[in-house]
């Protein structure tokens, strides 16, 4: 047992609780922009989770997953922002 595997017992639950917080905001969010921010944050927390998972499983490939998730979440957020700005309600 190494110190990193011990840290996983703290890190993974805290990231899961963070995702739950974001999910609550996604459900509750009073307006559409709040939900877009929540989705963006959820992708970013997922990125962090992928980085942690790469360490937990000793699989370096998960870093590429994190990179691709960053690219896609930026595209999605930008598209959502355009959509929100164009639509006059």
């Amino acid at each position, binding site marked *: 047992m190494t110190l*990193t595997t011990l840290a996983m017992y703290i890190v993974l639950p805290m990231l899961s609780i963070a995702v739950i917080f974001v999910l609550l905001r996604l459900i509750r969010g009073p307006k559409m922009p709040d939900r877009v921010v929540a989705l963006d944050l959820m992708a970013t927390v997922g*990125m*962090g989770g992928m980085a942690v998972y790469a360490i937990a499983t000793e699989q370096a490939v998960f*870093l590429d997953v994190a990179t691709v998730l960053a690219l896609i979440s930026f595209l999605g957020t930008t598209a959502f922002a355009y959509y929100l700005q164009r639509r006059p309600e």
Partner: protein
Amino acid sequence: MITTNLGDMVTAILLLIGTFFMFVGALGLLRMPDLFMRMSATAKAVTMGVSTLLIAVAVHFNELGLGTRALATIAFVFITTPIAAHMIGRAGYARQVKLWEGTIVDELRGRYDPETGELLSRPPVPAETAASEGTD
């Protein structure tokens, strides 16, 4: 029994710091009262958290190619997160998201026309407000 070496210790510390920042960012998203404060809480904290976690990956695996990829991802996140936050904030203001009732400064108040999307350089405000504002 916990075996440890220096790289392992650094990785564990970086993981804990990064997770703390992610957690604080998510907590800010849940607890802050309006859209702009939520974005201000999350964009900064989560950028910091993700980059710290990616540095932890780079330290843990200790390879040149992997570290380069981690640094490239960090650079990408540092560039794109402010852009995304700015775009959502602008779209939110254009959609006239309600501000928190304790908000003190709204520099675009009166200058933004939601019908045409135009910005005015001078707000059409009463004279006493304009006099106190125009000294800068």
